């Protein structure tokens, strides 16, 4: 495997990044879909507040988001202490890195999902209801399939964001090799040590390749789905 000339530490960083990004994306998929649906379809008090909260990580400096996470989920944080009681520790663990990535990618995911849900023709959903489909059946058999391209795009965006997340992650869970040192943290570390340029460049190229692959994959999927919905 060393055709790429990667050191074991670099491999560890890549594997960790993929794991963190995958867990962050999968874990935020259903909450993201639920909130996107609420924002797209429901009018309720506090809707604007929810919308603002979801978008907050997009406009706050990542360091601030990371620090807020540390305050909330740190060992002595508001939720962190309670979670520690039941054995869940997030600070300075890879799970914390996943949480930071999920929070940072959440606005992108919800935005894409919400737009695709808003684009689903309500009249077709009504027609399904007249044929006997309950609201939950309508969601599963009509809304979700029709919104799927956007839902996938949202997931890919969140994954790509998680692969590149740096500020909030390093603030919240630091930069521990093998535990919280993701690809961007590893690149940052390599640029800080003498002779690290080659390693930084290698990881940078890997990072670019992974992001491109994710983008291409989502593009292919979206096109395939569009064909299925189109004049097939």
């Amino acid at each position, binding site marked *: 495997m060393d055709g790429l000339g990667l050191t074991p530490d670099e491999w560890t960083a890549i594997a960790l990044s993929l794991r963190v990004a995958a867990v962050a994306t999968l874990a935020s998929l259903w909450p993201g879909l639920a909130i996107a649906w609420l924002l797209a379809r429901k009018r309720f008090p506090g809707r604007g507040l929810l919308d603002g909260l979801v978008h907050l990580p997009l406009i706050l400096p990542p360091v601030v988001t990371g620090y807020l996470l540390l305050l909330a989920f740190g060992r002595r944080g508001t939720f962190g202490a309670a979670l520690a009681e039941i054995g869940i520790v997030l600070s300075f663990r890879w799970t914390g890195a996943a949480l930071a990535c999920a929070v940072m990618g959440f606005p992108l995911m919800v935005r894409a999902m919400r737009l695709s849900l808003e684009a689903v023709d309500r*009249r077709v959903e009504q*027609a*399904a*209801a*007249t044929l*006997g*489909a309950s609201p939950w059946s309508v969601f599963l058999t*009509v809304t979700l*399939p029709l919104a799927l391209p956007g839902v996938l795009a949202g997931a890919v965006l969140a994954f790509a964001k998680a692969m590149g997340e740096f500020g909030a992650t390093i603030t919240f869970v630091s930069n521990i090799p093998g535990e919280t040192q993701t690809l961007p943290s590893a690149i940052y570390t390599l640029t800080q040590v003498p002779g690290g340029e080659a390693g930084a460049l290698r990881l940078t190229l890997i990072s670019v390749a992974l992001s491109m692959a994710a983008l291409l994959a989502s593009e292919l999927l979206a096109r395939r789905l569009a064909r*299925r919905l189109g004049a097939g």
Partner: protein
Amino acid sequence: MSLDLAVSLTRGAFRLDVAFAASPGLTALFGPSGSGKTTVIDCLAGLVRPDRGRIVVAGETLLDTHRRIDVPTHRRRIGVVFQEPRLLPHLCVRQNLDYGRRFFPRGRDAIPGLAFDDVIGLLGIGHLLARRPAGLSGGEGQRVAIGRALLSRPRLLLMDEPLAALDAARKAEILPLIEGLRDGAGIPIVYVSHAVSEVARLADTLVVLEAGRVAAAGPAEALLRRGELGPDHAAQGGSLLDMVVAGHDPASGLTHLTGIAGALSVPRLDRAVGTPVRLLVPARDVLVATQAPVGLSARNVLAGTVRDLTPLGEGAVRVTLECGGAALAARLTQASVRDLALAPGQPVFAVVKSVAFDPQGIGTGRGLGAVEI
């Protein structure tokens, strides 16, 4: 099967306050755009919740705001054919037709004569089953939508101007199917339309809506006879003539019809000789002459006498003619009436322009005499 409806609602400046009862067969909701026809359909289907109201279908209360009953759309068992097909774009035609099946409670039988194969045969959509909705024409899509609604085994079928988005040829293709459903399927139908020709052809019961209120309601024949289609209708008024196909002339491409009013020629009509047909003759397409016209391009001239003259306002007069026992209305200007010195009892000739015959107005006759509207 019965339908009892009383609903009222206010949405901004629009107020709807409608109550009617429908007997079996086809009930037409007739009225101009904005009269509330579609809102009534939406209330029936449970897509719109009225402020106050009660809806009872076949003895089951679907809505009673007073008793806080509001059966959700998916449990109402009311099939709806909308103005546009609204097919599920991600499913093929067969899956669209089958969509309602997965929600049947066990033990609900297909409507007799309306099993899957019957329906695709009736609608002629067997060759479309593998296609996607995006690849269908408007007429094909609407036929699939009708099939899908029928296969969901409804106890009431709502059709909200199902022909509105189709051209004349597609309308001519689907109207006989709706007639077939009315006469054969035994499902009561509520049919929304603002086209007199469709109503005249299809309706058993007629409910005329105007500005959110019921202007008239009752058996279609009687209402049409009395001309109670609402003031908006005066502009498009006309007469219904029942005739029989007497023969076809391949050379001229015309079909000859005969009836008590006389003989008429219309563009080729694909019906066998002897088939009864009902014609709609728009009043504005009838000219009146005091002498037998010569050198005229219009082919259809009927002899008759003036029965009465009714001013319509804006300088227009409705002249009702008696042609061999059938009534024929003509819309003339007051100036023409004066120039011709028309008076009741006077013998005249009615010139009917061939183009005045609306192919969609030609339906199967049902023993109705000429109707004045």
